């Protein structure tokens, strides 16, 4: 089963789908929607087969394919995945069909072509798969930049209030980050023996200063993408203006490219620089956890609120990555997946609510639970997952990040733990202001607010809820895949897990 060119097909398939959907007649929007959905489901099935073909105990990079591309630079179409990339790919292929189903009517009101909207979603899937599957640094860079294009159009053409401002801001931020990375990629090529091959480059050593500068180039790009404090201000604007489905992909997947990039490129390529910069990176992440949570509490716009919660969550991921322990690292990667599911769900259900009220302003709600009880229940569940309640998947990842960090740096773990109290505050206050209390009289005049979730919407949220619960009680299938890759990364950085401080006595007692 390992011989099938999974990654090439998996990457190419959505591109082909995007072309097909784009060519469909504008007069028959339903056809475009159905084809897009079916296409993304085929991609999903293929990714599941690939998951089965992947051997968790095998080589670090598997399913490798390499084709010639630009021989003079030795840039190649090289695809390969480790456990981390595999989990990210599955997250993409799970979320895209759900988002397509959720976006069914998002483009209807727009003056633009409906098939274009769904073609853009598939195009986005193509770039998202490519960026995670690439094992050639130049190829990665190309996908990293191309990814901006479909998202720019999704926000700029199909978004809500202030969409042009948000789209341009998103584009410029990412472009600036990309330029830093381009400089670092070229630098890497020059000092790394004129190759872009990830395996070859991880095996080469760089002078201390060179490594640090190159690290910084990559890190700035990824920190903007993730985003980490203080590079975060584009996200609330983009998340607030993007259509709900695109916002779910933006925050759920695109941002993960930043943290994925750090794990795949910064840490293994520049271990010395990673150790040197780690305290700064953790400091930024730590500020993000507290700062963004406080800002989330202060938001009056639902979509901006969710965007800020995301920044806080990325703080946890950042702490987990730079703590350099197996638990914290595995927790960080698991967090990336769980955050995609939980925040994806939160964005989608907030989108359903906002679409009914035609407003994202929290003041326009109040007591809505009475009108739409099922929607309120789903919003509450998504909120619980977002505050990492035990029993939901995010708990496991947050717990792993914190416990792993605690073993090496107690103050950081303790400060980050304060974040779990703030998370409860922003979620519950949001629920209270929208769903509980006296019914806001303006809601009664909105006929759409009397319609609870329909079948399509239930089909959107059900798989996410089931996955969040399943992984909340049985995360092992995922952690078993992530764990070897994280262990290898921690080894690359030259770190190992500390033994229990009084470990010897415990072992004696066990014997």
């Amino acid at each position, binding site marked *: 089963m390992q011989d099938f060119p999974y990654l090439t097909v998996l990457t190419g398939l959505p591109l082909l789908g995007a072309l097909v959907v784009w060519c469909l007649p504008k007069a028959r929007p339903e056809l475009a929607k159905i084809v897009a959905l079916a296409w993304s489901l085929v991609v999903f099935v293929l990714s599941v087969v690939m998951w089965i073909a992947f051997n968790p105990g095998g080589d670090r990079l598997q399913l490798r394919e390499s084709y010639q591309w630009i021989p003079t630079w030795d840039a190649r179409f090289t695809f390969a995945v480790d456990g981390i990339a595999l989990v990210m790919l599955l997250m993409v292929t799970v979320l895209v069909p759900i988002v397509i189903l959720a976006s069914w009517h998002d483009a209807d009101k727009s003056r633009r072509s409906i098939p274009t909207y769904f073609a853009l979603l598939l195009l986005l899937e193509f770039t998202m798969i490519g960026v995670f599957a690439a094992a050639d640094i130049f190829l990665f860079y190309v996908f990293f930049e191309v990814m901006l294009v479909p998202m720019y159009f999704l926000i700029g053409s199909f978004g809500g209030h202030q969409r042009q401002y948000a789209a341009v801001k998103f584009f410029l931020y990412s472009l600036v980050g990309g330029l830093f990375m381009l400089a670092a990629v070229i630098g890497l090529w020059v000092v790394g023996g004129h190759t872009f091959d990830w395996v070859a480059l991880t095996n080469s050593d760089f002078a201390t200063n060179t490594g640090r500068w190159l690290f910084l180039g990559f890190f700035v790009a990824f920190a903007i993408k993730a985003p980490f404090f203080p590079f975060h201000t584009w996200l609330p604007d983009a998340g607030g203006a993007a259509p709900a489905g695109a916002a779910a992909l933006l925050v759920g997947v695109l941002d993960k490219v930043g943290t994925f990039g750090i794990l795949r490129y910064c840490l293994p390529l520049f271990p010395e620089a990673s150790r040197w910069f780690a305290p700064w990176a953790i400091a930024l992440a*730590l500020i993000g956890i507290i700062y963004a949570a406080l800002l989330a509490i202060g938001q009056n716009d639902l979509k901006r609120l969710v965007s800020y919660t995301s920044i806080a969550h990325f703080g946890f991921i950042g702490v987990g990555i730079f703590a350099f322990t197996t638990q914290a690292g595995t927790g960080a990667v698991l967090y990336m997946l769980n955050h995609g599911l939980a925040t994806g769900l939160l964005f989608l259900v907030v989108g359903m609510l906002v679409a009914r009220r035609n407003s994202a302003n929290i003041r326009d709600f109040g007591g809505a639970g009475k009108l739409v009880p099922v929607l309120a229940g789903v919003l509450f569940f998504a909120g619980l997952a977002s505050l990492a309640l035990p029993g939901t998947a995010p708990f496991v990842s947050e717990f792993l990040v914190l416990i792993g960090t605690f*073993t090496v740096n107690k103050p950081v773990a303790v400060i980050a733990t304060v974040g779990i109290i703030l998370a409860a*505050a922003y979620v519950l206050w949001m629920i*209270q202001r929208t769903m509980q209390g006296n019914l806001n009289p303006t809601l009664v005049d909105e006929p759409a607010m009397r319609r609870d979730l329909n079948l399509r919407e239930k089909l959107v949220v059900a798989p996410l809820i089931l996955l969040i619960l399943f992984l909340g009680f049985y995360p*092992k299938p995922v952690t078993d895949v992530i764990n070897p890759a994280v262990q290898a990364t921690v080894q690359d950085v030259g770190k190992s897990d500390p033994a229990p401080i009084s470990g010897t006595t*415990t072992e004696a007692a066990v014997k």
Partner: protein
Amino acid sequence: MEQTIEYAHATGVLGSVWLLIAIPLVSSAVILLLGRRSAKFAHWLGTAAIGAGFVLTLIYFFLLRDQPNRAVERNLWEFISVGSLKVDIGLLFDPLSAVFCLLITGVGFLIHLYAVGYMAHDERRHTFFGYFNLFAAAMLLLVLGNNYVMLYLGWEGVGLASYLLISFWYTRPSAATAGKKAFLMNRVGDAGLVIAIFMMFAYLGSTNYADVFNGVGSLSFTVVLMMGLLLLLGATGKSGQFPLQAWLPDAMEGPTPVSALIHAATMVTAGVYLIARSNAIFSANEVLQTVVVSVGALTLLIGCIIGAAKDDIKRVLAWSTVSQIGYMFLGVGLGGGAYALAIIHLLAHGFFKANMFLGAGSVMHGMKDQVDIRRFGGLWKLMPWTFATFTAGWLAIVGFPGFSGFFTKEPIIVAAFEREGWTAWLYGWAALLGAGLTAFYMTRLWVLTFLGPKRWTEDIEHPHESPPIMVGPLVLLAIGSAIAGGLMASPVAKWLEPPLPAEAHDLHPVMSHGVITTLSLVLTFAGIGLAYLLFRRGTALVEQPAGVVVTAARRNLYADAFNEIVFEKPGIFLTRALVFFDNRGIDGAVNGLAAAVGGGSGRLRRLQTGFVRSYAMSMMAGALLVVAAFVAVQMGWLS
């Protein structure tokens, strides 16, 4: 620790102990997923699920008695396995979890039955039973886990159920606020608990009970102290103890069966369970024990003082719960044989407090949800069953000779006098004083509600007795209130050892046993007598001006005001300031920079005319923040 703790693998029927959690969980899922379609049968399904749990618990209980070391473990599946961290979904059925399971399913069954009648007119009764079953499942997980992570799962699960049930009538702003307050204050405690779990892994490499308890001996004084204080923080949050007591009285916004089951009989005693379960940690450090004792003694007095000033029947009972749990904390803090005394008082309290809460619910049911005791009076004639059963609960809680409290509270007071040196006098007298005050405020409640002249109006309230489905559970609980304490006291103490430590026989109280009992009885009767004399003729219908102490007590000793001034107001100011800072400062700085780099004319001009200073200020603030965080991180690496 000289001896190593080991648990046998559960085999045979005991291997199915997970059913205790699974049955209510499945029932809850069915009810909540079916929604309104389950309305016809949800209450019976929910009640049957708990009833089945009670029967099963009895079977397991008798099987456990015949086990060689009376503790069996069952690891169901691997939950987390990353590096050296291994956490199983694992259960432990031992004497301590067994008595809790009996309490949760036994008293829980009666309260479920009562709720069938109490909630009959609520259109969301099915949802109520869905949440109620969810609570039972989480609570059983809490007491059945074999490691701290399982305990934490249950801990957060009951917190969730508590939140859902406090704000069950979510359209009332006060109910929504009370639910949120409970969840948030609990989260503060939870943060302590979870950091204690991190410490266990960092220092001992495990979160399993057996590994942690066996390893405590190898830890330094400071580490044990820190770990214990963090566990205590968690316990105070869940159990409504000082300094996290303010949420519990507000939790009375929930339907009365919720107050009875969750906020009196079971969930709020989880903190006592946590400390008793962790007795190996707490007994290992005397400073730690003194802190627990102090929290218990202080809270039991706080509860009495505020309880005496309240006029809402449920709030009086809520503060009395705070106070009674204070006695339990006092017990577990005293250590040694007092661990078992605290658990026994907890069980007895489960009966009599559930009894009185349901009695209060019965009164409210007959009085159109009136809760103000100033507007009751003379109800004994109209609600004879409620009156009789409530009286049993009242006699039990004040420690009337022959009733439960007499057998379970008394030994804790004696144990407090067994401490070394002057602290015996301090804590002993606190406990004694509490007994007198308890007698006073509970008698006030009882007299104002049932005796004296009627202070309600016929055309608004039509007092009537509750239906049999509510009276039945009341009668059974009243019998329990009366006799459970006396019956349980000595066999349960024996049953609980181990896991709880045995009683030390070389301890002597600073006053003789007889003197303490006499003093306690004198104070109790004085309290009863005084309250009767003051309130037998009823009371004014509106709040009267009062002195400093009573005013303070009416305001919950200013705990809410303190929280508002110290946390809420500055918190709101901080979030607002940060929102401004983020929009104008960081975002503005970046936009300004972009404009400057691009040479944009309009933006640039605006930049030069005034905003520069605020950008510069905020960039500096940001830089300072980063440096401060960096320093904190560096300190962490060094330590």
